[in-house]
């Protein structure tokens, strides 16, 4: 195995954070024209826009760090499935409204802690992106928390269904708190976030909101891993990039 250089590690790390934003942002944008009410649709599109915007800043920085003359578009449109290192949670299909809200809640609760920590990175660019993203994530977390409470403490039907969403998606949350080689390498310089330390505060936040929503926190500790460390995705991922990358693959270099 070849030794990972600091530069490669920074590129991988930055792109991996961006992958989370791009993929969940893409998933949320699939709700366009399908949300239960226009206000909810606009809310999801707003969140999606923030996430894709954050991804663009990060990809641009990864491209600059790499120094091979590539752009954000090369990262989004011309990498293959195994190169994407988003958390599996972000690529799970939207399901029903409850599934989408639970996924957004799990991710926003994570992102709030993550970006807060990234804001103190010794890498000035990552710190700037962390500070900016944190402001946006605060809104995502509040929106998804309020919906979770509405669904959990709503009707018998909404309660049962959203509890199932939580139980179904739970196995994908553990991956968020695992460290890659790049993350470990950058940790010594204070560039990366030690995500293992985020698990306890994340659990607290989840428990706080779920309790309020009269929902039960799953006790199953088993976690499905694969994407973050190795780019091994669920069977759903190929369809996402097939749609996302179609134009650039079919018409290379095509511009708007």
């Amino acid at each position, binding site marked *: 195995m070849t030794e990972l250089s600091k530069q490669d590690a920074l590129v991988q790390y930055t792109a991996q954070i961006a992958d989370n934003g791009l993929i969940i942002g893409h998933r949320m944008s699939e709700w366009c024209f399908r949300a239960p009410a226009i206000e909810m649709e606009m809310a999801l599109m707003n969140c999606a826009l923030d996430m894709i915007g954050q991804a663009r*800043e990060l990809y641009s920085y990864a491209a600059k760090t790499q120094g091979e003359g590539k752009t954000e578009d090369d990262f989004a449109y011309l990498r293959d499935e195994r190169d994407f290192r988003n958390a599996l949670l972000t690529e799970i299909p939207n399901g029903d409204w409850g599934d989408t809200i639970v996924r957004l809640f799990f991710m926003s609760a994570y992102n709030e802690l993550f970006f807060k920590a990234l804001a103190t990175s010794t890498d000035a660019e990552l710190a700037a992106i962390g*500070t900016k993203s944190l402001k946006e994530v605060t809104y995502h977390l*509040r929106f998804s928390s309020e919906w979770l409470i509405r669904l959990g403490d709503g009707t018998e039907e909404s309660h049962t269904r959203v509890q199932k969403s939580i139980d179904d998606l739970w196995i994908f949350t553990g991956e968020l708190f695992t460290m890659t080689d790049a993350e470990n390498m950058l940790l010594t310089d204070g560039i990366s976030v030690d995500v293992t330390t985020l698990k306890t505060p994340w659990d607290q936040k989840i428990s706080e909101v779920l309790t309020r929503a009269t929902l039960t926190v799953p006790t199953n500790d088993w976690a499905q891993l694969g994407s973050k460390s190795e780019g091994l995705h669920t069977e759903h991922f190929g369809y996402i990039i097939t749609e996302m990358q179609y134009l650039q693959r079919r018409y290379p270099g095509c511009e708007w």
Partner: protein
Amino acid sequence: MVKKVTSTSKNFDPAVVWAILEEVKDPEIPVLSIVDLGIARDVQESNDGLLEIIISPTYSGCPAMYMLEEQIKETLVNHGYPDPIVTTKLSPAWTTDWMTDAGKQKLEAYGIAPPEKTTSNKSVLFGGQKKISCPKCKSNNSEQISEFGSTACKALYRCLDCLEPFDYFKCI
């Protein structure tokens, strides 16, 4: 007469450049200039002796940023400044606190409730929602319909007295 920037010295007047930047309006809120919004952060001379404008994006995904960049360049070129540079800076992160008082007044006159004074008071979760004053009838008796409005920077409200729905420019 507008002075031209040459590569030899800093011979542009920042005050004149700032006045020109007032002409560049936000495409989503055409009553506000990039100066009112606090998007234009600095006017300086680049290392190559060119006029450089520093801007700060409002939201990460704001689709107006690219257009604003082009408009800034075009406006400056039209005023006789060749090859102006527009540089985006993320840090410090843009905040609604940078919006000028004149900007807030224009916003309200346009029918959008301006952001509250400061972003330091963060009732993050299950937020003690603030009462926003209706830009039409000035009543404080309003309710939030959705925290996400027609653009990333706005929330949807409704006045419970005059019943008018309105946008509120969110604090960030």
